[in-house]
């Protein structure tokens, strides 16, 4: 009788939250079915995804990898009991032509060269892109890379890139020498003139003389043999690489107080940005030879390099201008107060910071240029898109569409997506470093 009262001695263990609030179910409720509108949307999109996936998989999963022609694919589909125009994917074309889509007509036995080249590109970019993770000395390799890259791609004697590189060395030496004795302006003009004389008249003599003595050469490959993704990447890399210095000069020119210089730079940038790339490519394919002295004849790839570089440098100039504008004014004033002159200030204080801020913009410019390289198909270069036409001109593969476009789209996607993710990562990294 007396012990009726109940006093709890120990705490009950907390109850699990209802199954509908945690775990998978809870997550689904919160994120997918949180209201009638959301539920409808979720179900509709689920239906859409399943429909697309079913259709895509049904089309793509077919045993046609080893077919050697579209007719063979069609007979395979007949055996499978499928009929109709788009019964399934004919993957034989990819298995036969993937090499061409990647490398164009680059000789098979030499294809290690572009591959090595792009691997080395990664190494050369590492000190810039992952400066905290690789040894700083690697920057010297970055400096050499612009001369190694064309040599590996085009082949020929090693002395040509050496001679070109020597031009820079000579120009620098002369600049140093004269800058101490006279003014920097004179030194700069003199070094440019000497370098031009070297490149135009002496470099070829130098390289052919040395090539005769020490024949160090790779088998030459004509640029006409470039094609496929290799061509796209080469155009993109060359254009961005060359447009970086031009872009810096244009950006500085646009910001400068010198009226004429500024007008010229603004005019150039706005002109290039105001016309579609395709018209510039028309210029490359039909007009550039008319603009050059009679007799000179760049091949079409060289002309495309020129025009795409000019195109990219206008965009690059705007990206770098953004970087310059983002620098706090104190940096400029600080440089002035240290008594640095314009170029010293640019070299030591402004540019390193501005360029660092601009890297994400540079990467997205690169992605843009890389995607735009598909336009060269319009002027008959064998980029992946135009290769599809060449492949379909083979009687075996005439009539294929989706497999080729799909393959190309996938490769472009992988490449550009990777780049854009990297640029986003970089943006975050730079932001935290800045605050």
């Amino acid at each position, binding site marked *: 009788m007396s012990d009726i009262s109940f006093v709890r001695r120990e705490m009950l263990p907390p109850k699990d939250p209802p199954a509908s609030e945690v775990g998978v179910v809870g997550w689904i409720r919160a994120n997918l079915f949180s209201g009638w509108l959301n539920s409808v949307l979720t179900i509709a999109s689920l239906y859409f995804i399943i429909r697309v996936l079913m259709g895509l998989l049904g089309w793509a999963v077919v045993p046609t990898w080893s077919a050697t022609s579209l007719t063979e694919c069609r007979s395979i589909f007949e055996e499978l009991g499928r009929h109709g125009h788009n019964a399934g994917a004919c993957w034989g074309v990819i298995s036969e032509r993937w090499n061409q889509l990647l490398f164009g007509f680059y000789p098979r036995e030499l294809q290690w060269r572009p591959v090595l080249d792009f691997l080395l590109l990664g190494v050369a970019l590492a000190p810039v892109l992952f400066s905290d993770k690789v040894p700083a000395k690697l920057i010297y390799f970055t400096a050499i890379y612009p001369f190694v890259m064309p040599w590996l791609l085009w082949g020929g004697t090693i002395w040509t890139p050496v001679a070109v590189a020597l031009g820079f060395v000579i120009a620098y030496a002369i600049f140093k020498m004269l800058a101490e004795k006279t003014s920097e302006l004179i030194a700069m003009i003199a070094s440019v003139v000497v370098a031009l004389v070297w490149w135009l008249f002496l470099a070829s003599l130098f390289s052919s003389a040395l090539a005769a003595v020490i024949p160090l050469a790779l088998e030459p490959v004509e640029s006409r043999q470039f094609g496929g993704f290799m061509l796209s990447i080469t155009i993109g890399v060359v254009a961005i690489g060359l447009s970086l210095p031009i872009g810096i000069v244009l950006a500085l020119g646009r910001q400068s107080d010198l009226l004429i210089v500024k007008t010229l730079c603004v005019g150039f940038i706005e002109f290039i940005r105001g016309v579609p790339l395709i018209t510039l490519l028309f210029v490359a394919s039909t007009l550039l030879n008319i603009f050059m002295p009679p007799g000179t004849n760049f091949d079409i790839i060289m002309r495309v390099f020129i025009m795409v570089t000019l195109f990219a440098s206008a965009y690059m100039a705007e990206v770098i201008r953004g970087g310059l504008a983002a620098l706090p004014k104190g940096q400029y004033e600080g440089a002035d107060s240290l008594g640095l002159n314009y170029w010293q200030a640019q070299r030591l204080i402004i540019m390193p910071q501005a360029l660092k801020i601009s890297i994400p913009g540079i990467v997205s410019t690169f992605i843009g240029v890389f995607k735009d390289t598909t336009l060269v198909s319009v002027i008959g270069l064998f980029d992946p898109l135009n290769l599809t036409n060449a492949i379909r001109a083979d009687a075996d593969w005439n*009539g294929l569409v989706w497999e080729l476009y799909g393959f190309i789209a996938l490769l472009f996607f992988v490449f550009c997506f990777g780049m854009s993710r990297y640029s986003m990562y970089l943006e975050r990294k730079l932001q935290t470093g800045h605050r």
Partner: protein
Amino acid sequence: MNTSVFFGALTVAGLAAGAAAAGTLDDVKARDKLNCGVTTGLVGFAAPNANGEWEGFDVAVCRAVAAAVLGDSSKIEFVPTTGKTRFTALASGEIDMLARNTTWTFSRDVDLKFEFVGVNYYDGQGFMVPKELGVSSAKELDGATVCIQTGTTTELNLADFFRSNNISYEPVPIETNAEAQQQYLAGACDVYTTDASGLAATRATFDDPTAHAILPEIISKEPLGPLVRHGDHEWGDVVRWTLNAMVAAEELGVTSANLSEMASGTDNPEINRLLGTEGNLGEMLGLDADWAAKALSVGGNYGEVFAKNIGEDTPIGLARGLNAQWTDGGLLYAPPFR
């Protein structure tokens, strides 16, 4: 400074590319390579295979010229050109000759300053329709949607044809044959018009070729042939006579099978002159005496090249028709080798 560096590098590249000297023939010899303009891909006429080697009827002409001039049919670089770029490529010296199913017209010859050295394929613009439409003449095509390949004389011929017959149509201009074919097969256009050879080549690759008919009207003359720049007659002669040699060889019965036998001398003086065992025709052209033999050793005579690339035994299956020898009622008529 960097701008000038850039231009400096360009000029270096320009110098390395070499300046065009006086004659194309000397250029080609000095370069040891023939630059030949072709299409970016047309079934049977020019297309790269899986190994990147170019094959086709137009390509064979290029190879024959390369063999005649340089003695080796692989010393050649194929420059793919579009309808837009082909003439500038030739005019600017980027290519030495253009073998890209190009129609010989007055304005191209006279106004654009090119020289057509001959005709390697007599073609004409035709129409292809699905048989289920029940159309038997192009004049019944009032209101039809017509797929045309742009960048050619095709759209002008078409406009003229429909205007002169006073019927209307809806043009669908398309850049490449592959896409035109796709639209036509899907029914996005009722009619596909291009050169009759192209129609036949396209139809041959269809799932069901018998469901499509090529209409009897041929609305234009399309003599297709290789061309070179105006004014360089030595080079023009080389290309012209290489083509003629291929045609004459068929007429004279010289084939790749009996070439080596005949090259050692025959009773027929014309064959001997052609193959260089008699006379000095090669020297007159500025080539070796056996230039024509070399050219023929690549793919044989005109008939063999035709049969191999576009003839009736290939999927394309073109009959000789106008392109038969004049002795067989065709138009091929090589001037005498004398």
